C-alpha cells in the first residue's frame, strides 16, 4: 500500500479510479506466467507470484506517465511498466514498486500506408494492428509470443523473433520513431519525431548517433530504462490476398485459405542436411515462414490438444523437419516460388509430405498469417519456457541444437520436463537467411514443484553450457546475476551497461530486476 499522501498525489495525476493499492488488486498483479521458475532460480519458493506491487496505476497519456515517473523519483519508489503484460518480465522485483499498467494507452496513432509504417501505443495488440494494416495490403511483424501481445513492447523492450521473420525481420530492427519517458521523467523522442517543428515518425536514428542503441539490444530492457509510450515500426507487404474468412467455433475454426499459399514440410533427415537446405531456401528469398522444429514440435503446431497431437504420428516421427510456407500476391509470383521449391526438393532429395502424407487443418494457415503458432507450445504440459535464444548463423544454431540434446535428455530422464527426445527447438531464419536464431522450448508443469525446480535447474545448466561452448548469449541474460555471469566472458559489457543505467536513471527508479542495476 501507498502512504496516504503519495496515493493522493498519484490520484491527482490519473484520477482516483485509475490508481489502486488495495490488497486484492496488488496481489492479483503479482501473478504471472513463468514467475514460479524465476522464483525457483532465485532460490525462492516456486510460486507464480512476484513481489507485491505497492499500487497499480493506469495512466492514459505520455504526460501522465511523465508525472508518475517524476513522483516516483520524488518519493524514491520504483516503477515497472507493462503493456499486454505476458511473462515474469512485467513483474516488480521489490516491494517498493508500483506497476504502470498501460492498458488505457491503446490507440493506433497512425498507419502511413505510403511510407509503410504504423505508430502505436503500448496496449495495441498485434492482431488488432494487423486487422487495420490489412486494409492497405500490409502486415506487421509479430513476435513468437503471438498476436495477442503488444508489438510496442516487442519493438522497444522485449525480444523479437517471429514465425514470419524471414519476411518481417526482428522487432528490434523494425523500429522507427520512438516516444520514451526516461527514468528521470524527461520525455525523449528518437529520430525525426524529435524535431520541434514538423516532426514525424519515419526514422528513429539521429541526428548523429542513434539512441536506439541505448534503448535496447538483442533483448530489450524490460522497463529498466524507462517507459515507451509510442513507437513507429515498419510494415510489410501482406504476403498474399488479404481475404480472411473464418467459420465454425473455437478452437476448430475453418479458414478459407487464400489463393497462392503453399506449405512444405520436409524431413531433412540429418542436421548437416538441414543447414544446407535452410540456406538454399533462404538465399532464394521466397519464404514467408522457414522454421525448423523437432518432430514433436511439428506435431504440436498442427494440434490443439494432447488428443489431437496423437493423430500426428506420421509427421511427428520425422527426424529433422523443416517447415516452409510460401505465399504470393500474384499467380506469376506463386508459380515462380513453387518452381524454386520444386528445384530445391530435387537438388536436396527432399519430399514434401503436405498433401500426400498429411494435410493440415485449414486453421493452420490462418494461424501462420496471424503469427499464432506459439500457443501450441502449451498443449502438452500447460507450461513452457525457452532456454537458449542465441542468434547468428544457421551453423551455430544447428550445432547448439545437436550438442544440447544430451543435456535436455538428462532432465527428461529425471521426469521434470516434457519428453521431446531432447530435440525440441525452434530455429528460424531472419531477413531471408541473413541470420538465424535458436531457442529450445521446454515443457514443464507449472503446478508441480518438482517440475518447476527441475526447469529452473535445466535453465541454469544451459547457461553454463552455452558459456562453456561459446554458443552465444541466450535470451534471458537479464538481471544483475546473469549480467555478472556473462559480462566477464563478453568484453565486460556489463560495466558499460551499468554506466548507461547510472547515467539515465541516477535514482535507480526504473525497476532493474530484468535489466541491470547501477550498483
Amino acid at each position, binding site marked *: 500500500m501507498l502512504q496516504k499522501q503519495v496515493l493522493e498525489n498519484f490520484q491527482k495525476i490519473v484520477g482516483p479510479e485509475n490508481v489502486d493499492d488495495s490488497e486484492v488488486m496488488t496481489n492479483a498483479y503479482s501473478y504471472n506466467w513463468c514467475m514460479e521458475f524465476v522464483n525457483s532460480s532465485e532460490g525462492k519458493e516456486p510460486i507464480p507470484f512476484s513481489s507485491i506491487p505497492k499500487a497499480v496505476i493506469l495512466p492514459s497519456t505520455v504526460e501522465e506517465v511523465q508525472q508518475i515517473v517524476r513522483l516516483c523519483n520524488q518519493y524514491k519508489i520504483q516503477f515497472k511498466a507493462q503493456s499486454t503484460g505476458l511473462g515474469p518480465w512485467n513483474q516488480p522485483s521489490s516491494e517498493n514498486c508500483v506497476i504502470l499498467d498501460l492498458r488505457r494507452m491503446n490507440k493506433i496513432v497512425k498507419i502511413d500506408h505510403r511510407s*509503410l509504417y504504423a505508430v502505436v501505443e503500448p496496449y495495441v495488440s498485434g492482431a488488432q494492428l494487423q486487422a487495420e494494416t490489412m486494409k492497405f495490403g500490409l502486415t506487421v511483424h509479430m513476435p513468437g509470443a503471438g498476436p495477442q501481445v503488444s508489438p510496442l513492447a516487442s519493438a522497444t523492450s522485449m525480444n523479437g523473433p517471429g514465425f514470419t521473420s524471414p519476411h518481417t525481420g526482428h522487432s528490434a530492427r523494425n523500429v522507427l520513431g520512438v516516444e520514451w519517458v526516461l527514468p528521470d521523467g524527461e520525455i525523449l523522442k528518437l529520430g525525426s519525431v524529435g524535431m520541434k517543428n514538423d516532426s514525424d515518425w519515419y526514422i528513429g536514428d539521429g541526428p548523429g548517433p542513434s539512441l536506439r542503441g541505448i534503448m535496447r539490444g538483442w533483448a530489450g530492457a524490460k522497463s529498466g530504462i524507462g517507459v515507451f509510450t509510442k513507437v513507429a515500426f515498419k510494415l510489410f507487404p501482406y504476403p498474399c490476398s488479404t481475404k480472411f474468412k473464418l467459420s465454425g467455433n473455437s478452437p476448430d475454426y475453418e479458414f478459407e485459405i487464400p489463393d497462392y499459399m503453399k506449405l512444405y514440410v520436409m524431413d531433412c533427415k540429418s542436421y548437416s542436411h538441414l543447414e544446407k537446405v535452410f540456406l538454399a531456401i533462404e538465399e532464394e528469398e521466397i519464404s514467408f515462414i522457414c522454421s525448423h522444429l523437432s518432430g514433436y514440435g511439428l506435431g504440436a503446431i498442427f494440434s490443439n490438444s494432447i488428443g489431437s497431437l496423437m493423430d500426428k504420428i506420421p509427421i511427428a516421427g520425422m527426424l529433422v523437419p523443416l517447415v516452409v510456407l510460401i505465399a504470393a500476391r500474384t499467380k506469376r509470383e506463386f508459380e515462380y516460388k513453387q518452381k524454386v521449391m520444386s528445384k530445391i526438393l530435387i537438388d536436396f532429395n527432399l519430399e514434401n509430405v503436405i498433401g500426400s502424407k498429411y494435410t493440415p487443418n485449414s486453421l493452420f494457415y490462418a494461424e501462420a498469417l496471424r503469427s499464432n503458432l506459439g500457443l501450441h507450445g502449451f498443449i502438452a504440459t500447460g507450461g513452457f519456457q525457452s532456454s537458449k535464444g542465441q542468434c547468428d548463423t544457421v551453423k551455430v544454431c544447428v550445432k547448439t541444437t545437436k550438442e544440447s540434446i544430451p543435456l535436455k535428455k538428462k532432465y527428461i530422464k529425471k521426469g521434470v520436463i516434457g519428453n521431446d527426445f531432447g530435440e525440441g527447438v525452434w530455429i528460424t531464419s531472419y531477413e531471408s537467411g541473413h541470420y538465424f536464431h535458436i531457442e529450445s522450448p521446454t515443457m514443464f508443469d507449472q503446478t508441480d514443484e518438482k517440475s518447476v525446480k527441475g526447469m529452473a535447474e535445466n535453465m541454469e545448466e544451459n547457461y553454463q553450457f552455452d558459456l562453456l561452448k*561459446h554458443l552465444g548469449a541466450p535470451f534471458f541474460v537479464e538481471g544483475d546475476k546473469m549480467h555478472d555471469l556473462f559480462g566477464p566472458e*563478453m568484453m565486460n559489457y556489463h560495466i558499460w551497461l551499468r554506466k548507461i543505467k547510472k547515467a539515465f536513471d541516477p535514482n535507480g527508479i526504473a525497476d532493474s530486476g530484468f535489466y541491470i542495476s547501477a550498483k
Partner: protein
Amino acid sequence: MNNHIDTLVHSLAKICGSKNISVDPNVLNPYSSDMSFFKGNNPNLIVWPSKTQEVTKIIKLANQMDFSIVPVSSSSNDRHHGDTIPRKDNCIIMNLTKMDKILSIDKKNRVVMIEPGVTFEKLIPKLQQSGLRLLLPLYPTGTKSVLTSVLEREPIIIPRYHWDTSDPLLCTEVVFGTGDLFRTGTAAGPGTLSQQKKAGQAHVNPMGPTQFSPYRVIQGAQGSLGIVTWATMKLEFIPSEQKVFHYHSNNIEELLDFQQKLANYRLCDETFILNNLNLACLVKKSREEIENLTNSLLKWNLIYILAGRGNLAIDKLNYLEGDINDLMRDSNLTHLESSNLIDKNEILECMNNYTAEPWRTRYKGSYQDIFFISNFENIPKYIKKVELKHPENLGIYIQPINQGTSYHCEFDLFYDSENGSETNDLEGKFNEISIDLMDCGAFFNRPYGYWAREVYARHIEQTSTALRKVKKIFDPNNVLNPGVLCFDK
C-alpha cells in the same frame, strides 16, 4: 617543434614507430580543410597505426596527455563534409589507411570482415571474384573507405535489402574514447573470436550484447565516441541477370508514386530518382556530354533494376516484369515514358562498380551537397523550395531507404571552386537553403559541420542531453573528434 609536440611524437613513436608519424606541414595542411565550407584548425601531427593495439595505446595516451584525435580512413583527399577537420587546438590526425586488410569473406553467410582502410576499389573486385556484392551507395568513389561510408549511414541503392537504418553494418570492434577495446553484436562473445568462429558464428547479428546495441551509437557519431578497427558487413550474391528500366517524366509525383509501389512490394533491386543533370553526371564524363544528355532527358528519371540468379533467373525477371506491368496498369501509370537515351550497360556500371573520381565533380569541378531524410509526402515540397532559390546547376537525387519507410533527399549544388565570386555566392546559398529546409521539417540526420548547431537547436533539448550522457560514458575526456555534433560543450 615545440616541447609538447616533441614529447608527443616521442611517445607515439614508441607505439607505432617514427616512420608512421609526420609533422611535415605539407602532409598536415590537406587535413585542415576539405571540399566543404567548414573552417577548422591545423592538426599537430599525423599518425598511421596499423594494428588495433596501436589504436588503443594512442587513445589511452590522448587521455593521459590531453590531446585529441580525429580519425580519417579514406585514402584520398576528397573529403567532403568537414567532419575530419580538427576544430580544437592540440589535435592529431589518426590516419587508418594502413589498416586495410580484408580479414575474411564468408560466402555461405554473406558477410565480409574489413578494416577501416579498405576502400571500394579494393573490396568490390575481391567480392566479385567470390560472386558477392556489397550494398553500395550510388556509384562510390574508389578511394573512399567502405567502413566510413557505412558508419556515416550513406544511403544504399537497394531499399529492399535495407532492413534497418544501420545496414549493411553488422558487428564491430571498437576502441572507445576511454581507450577500452570492445566488440559489438555477437562478436562480444562469449569466447574469443576464434572460439566463436569454431562454434560456427560469423558475426552476422549486430544486435547486443544483450540489452544494448553500442554499434548504433558509434554509427553516425563522426568518430567522436569510438574508433572502429574492423567491422563485418552484410553482402548479397551477384545476380546473373540484371535488367535496367529507365522511365522519365516532367512530373516527379507520378514517378515517386510508381517507385513507392515498387518499394512496397519489394519488386526491384536498385532504384532511385535523379533529375536530368544528376543522371547525366552519373553516366557521362565530359561537361559537353553531360549537357547534351541533360538536354535530351525529361526532367525526372526513375531507374530500377530487376535481378535474378541461377537457373531460374529469367523466370524471376519475367514474373517481376509481368507483375510490374500489372501494377502500372492498375495504378494508371501506363503512360509513363520509357527512355532509351542511355546505354543500359552504362547504368549497370554505376550500380555495380566504383568510380575513379567523384561523379558529382564532373560537371563543374566542385559541388556542395545538401542532404537529409524525408517522408514520402514532403519530397515535392522540398524540391520546390530548393529550385526556387537555386534553379541552375542543381543535381537532385531521391533515394528510398529502409525498405521505403523514408527517403534520402540530396541536392547537389555544382560550381567552379576556382571562381571566387561564384564560390562566395554558393556558400551563402548553401547555408540559406540548408536552414530553409531545416525550418520546414527536413530531417538532417547526419549533421555535419556548421549544420550541427542548427540541427540540434531544432530538436528537443532532451536529444542533446541524452547524447551528451552517451559521450560522457564512452569518451569522458572528449579526446575523440571534439566539437562535432552536439559535443561542443
